[in-house]
């Protein structure tokens, strides 16, 4: 009788200590053996959450690179619009030779600025228009009037979703070099401006230059449209990732988190049970015929 009473107390104490542990940690499953099936779900869910957090981090990296590219190309667009104005102005009959020289001078300055844009570096010191050759200055003018692209045509991607990758840049030759030329084939934007300036310096008209500058603008705008599409994709994917994290956390919480109200009421019940067992023990302990002898 005493044996049974002690056993009951020990059992209730161990149940109580488990509930106490659950409340202290907030976890329903304290070790895999308590719910082996639940545990097999917990690992992949945790991994999905961690991985998607990383994808969101990757997205921010992608966003900052794409934003820098977009900002740079936005400046390039403005510059080309100004160059277009100058080309229209220079091709006007009313301009004198001096006027054209002045225009040519401004064009040469724009050309230098454009070279600066094309050789933009990011915060890590990488040339953003060099393809994979990020440590090599992509655009050089040597000798004067000859423009060479020293980068490659690589395009970096980062992973922003389970099976979704997004390009975080564009190779410089696609942006600045391979622009359709009115005279057939391709010509770089640098050469277009350089040729225009040279024509004006010589006092000549340069009627085809306007077509070429429009081609250049079109080319840059096409790249910018792609960048815009990628930035949109980043936003969409980020929402998907966040939703996935939320869903996984919810599922995970259902599997491993403690229902506090249930646990606290269970704790109370167990406390009452333990007290009852203890009282039963002391009562039984007092029962003896010897008390009456």
């Amino acid at each position, binding site marked *: 009788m005493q044996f049974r009473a002690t056993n009951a107390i020990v059992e209730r104490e161990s149940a109580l200590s488990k509930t106490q542990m659950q409340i202290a940690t907030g976890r329903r499953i304290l070790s895999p053996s308590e719910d082996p099936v639940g*545990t*097999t779900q917990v690992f992949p869910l945790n991994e999905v959450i961690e991985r998607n957090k990383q994808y969101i*981090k990757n997205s921010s990296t992608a966003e900052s690179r794409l934003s820098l590219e977009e900002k740079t190309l936005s400046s390039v667009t403005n510059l080309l619009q100004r160059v277009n104005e100058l080309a229209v102005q220079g091709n006007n009959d009313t301009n004198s030779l001096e006027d054209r020289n002045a225009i040519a001078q401004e064009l040469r300055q724009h050309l230098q600025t454009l070279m600066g844009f094309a050789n933009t570096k990011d915060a*890590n010191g990488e040339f953003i228009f060099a393809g994979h050759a990020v*440590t090599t200055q992509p655009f050089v003018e040597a000798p004067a009037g000859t423009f060479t692209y020293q980068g490659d045509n690589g395009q970096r991607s980062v992973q922003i979703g389970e099976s979704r990758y997004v390009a975080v840049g564009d190779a410089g030759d696609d942006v600045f070099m391979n622009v359709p030329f009115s005279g057939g084939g391709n010509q770089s934007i640098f050469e277009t401006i350089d040729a225009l300036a040279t024509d004006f310096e010589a006092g000549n008209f340069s009627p085809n230059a306007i077509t070429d500058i429009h081609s250049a603008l079109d080319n840059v705008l096409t790249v910018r449209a792609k960048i815009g599409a990628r930035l949109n994709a980043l936003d969409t994917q980020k929402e998907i990732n966040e939703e996935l994290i939320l869903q996984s956390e919810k599922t995970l919480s259902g599997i491993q988190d403690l229902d506090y109200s249930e646990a606290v009421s269970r704790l109370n019940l167990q406390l009452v049970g333990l007290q009852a067992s203890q009282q039963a023990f002391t009562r039984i302990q007092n029962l003896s*015929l010897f008390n009456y*002898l």
Partner: protein
Amino acid sequence: MLNVAVSGLLAYQKALATTSHNISNVGTDGYSRQRVTLSTRTPEPAGNGFLGKGVNVTSVDRVYDQFLVAQLNNRTSAYNQLDAFHIMAAQLDSALGDPSIGLTPALENFFNAIQDVANDPTSIPARQVMLSQAESLNEQFKHLDRQFGDLKQSVNIQMTNIVTELNDLAAAIGDLNEDIVMGIGATGGQQPNDLLDQRDVLVNKLSEYVNVNTVPNDDGSINVYIGTGQSLVLGNQANQLAIASNAYDPTQKEISLVTPGSTVNITQQINGGKLGGLLDVREEVIDAGQAALGRIAIALSNTFNAQHQLGDDLNGNAGGLFFSAVDTTAPRSLPSANNDPGSGNITITINDVSQLKASDYRLNYDGSSTTFSLMRLSDNTIVDSGFGVGGLPRTIANEGITIDLTGTVAAGDSFLLTPTRYAASQMDLAISDPAAIAAAATGNNVGDNSNALALAALQTQGTMDGGTASYLDAYGKMVADIGIQTHRAAVNGDAQKALLNQAIEAREAVSGVNLDEEAANLLKYQQAYQASAQVISVVNSLFQTLFNAVS
């Protein structure tokens, strides 16, 4: 008449003494309450009938049920087996499953660090972080592997202690057997109750450690058999157990039975009790778990290295090994100590990590058919057989390994093959220079991250189990397996605990001392004693009357 009264006095004195003995031993482990059996003395014929001659104590017996005692021993042994299993398995269970210290966070951090390198492939800090995370991952592999090693060590130590304990118990039972035989002889067949109780207690203690069967002999001694019938005690002669080494792996301790003239390894025959539980948990959980962890280490290092070697590093050089090549250094064959001294050894090559199993193997060479047979130990299945020395090297279908022989092999040779067991302990980095991480595809400039992306993609690829499981899946399965085994031991242990408690109560109900009953007996015997004394006083007054009449 005086004699009759004195016989009552003496009998109730013994009855009171026995009651008092019962009360004194109310707290003694394994004590069976005793009772006196009284019977009338042979009556004396008188002319008009038989006149009673008083009372005799025929025996002092213990109240006891052999069936309940055997049941108690069986259940003690069954419960302790599960309990020992559970205690060991639960240590692994909590170490592997903890979300903060298991392999999972280390794997996640490592692969996230690769993504960061992909985000910024020329950044030395990002590469440095990836190396540090790889080091943490390696440390985690080693740490978990040490848990297995520590548990194995603990099993060895416990086995040593248990063997000492078992030997002491066996010797004590042998001694008691001798005392009991002598006691019975000296009293002309009376049972030495307290010695019998003590022997029962020792046998029960024995059953905590190993499954026990007892067979009584005619002289009152018992024979004690353990496991599947290995004789530990025969009458007053106790055999000894000793610690032996596993024939393949000397670091693994086993049990042998030392009888006069022979020493036999009885590890395979041991079942039940703590010893049975320890042997079970070592084979089913510790060895199996270590092989499973090693398999993940091999799969990770092998597949990661293969992809890493497809890329170019920051200096434009072809990528080398990223992790140490544990797939080539870890597989080991342990030849049996009983092999022919001139025999060579087996070499194991891992040829397909996606087929690799989390198991050890035993390779036997049959002398008569001169062929090998290979048994997978996780499920004791023969996975390949019927090939001879000429068929080597042999690629074992669906197991991902190729075996070959160095030297010669002799009839009856046997080898324990452990393709994955030692891999987790050997996980290291093969590079220390962050620039040596091959993030770019071969031939591409340094800004390329496509090989880093390919490395990162390995995280979710089905690299294992025939292309169906990622590293994490395999780890999850391993943790779940250990969890299920721990869970089963806990649940069955609880059930056995309840059965054991029932057996203890059943034995108590029959043999235990009930103080109320003893109190009642005390009163009863005291009254009988007083009445006998009163009879003597009556006899005395009768004599007095007679004396007065004649004087």
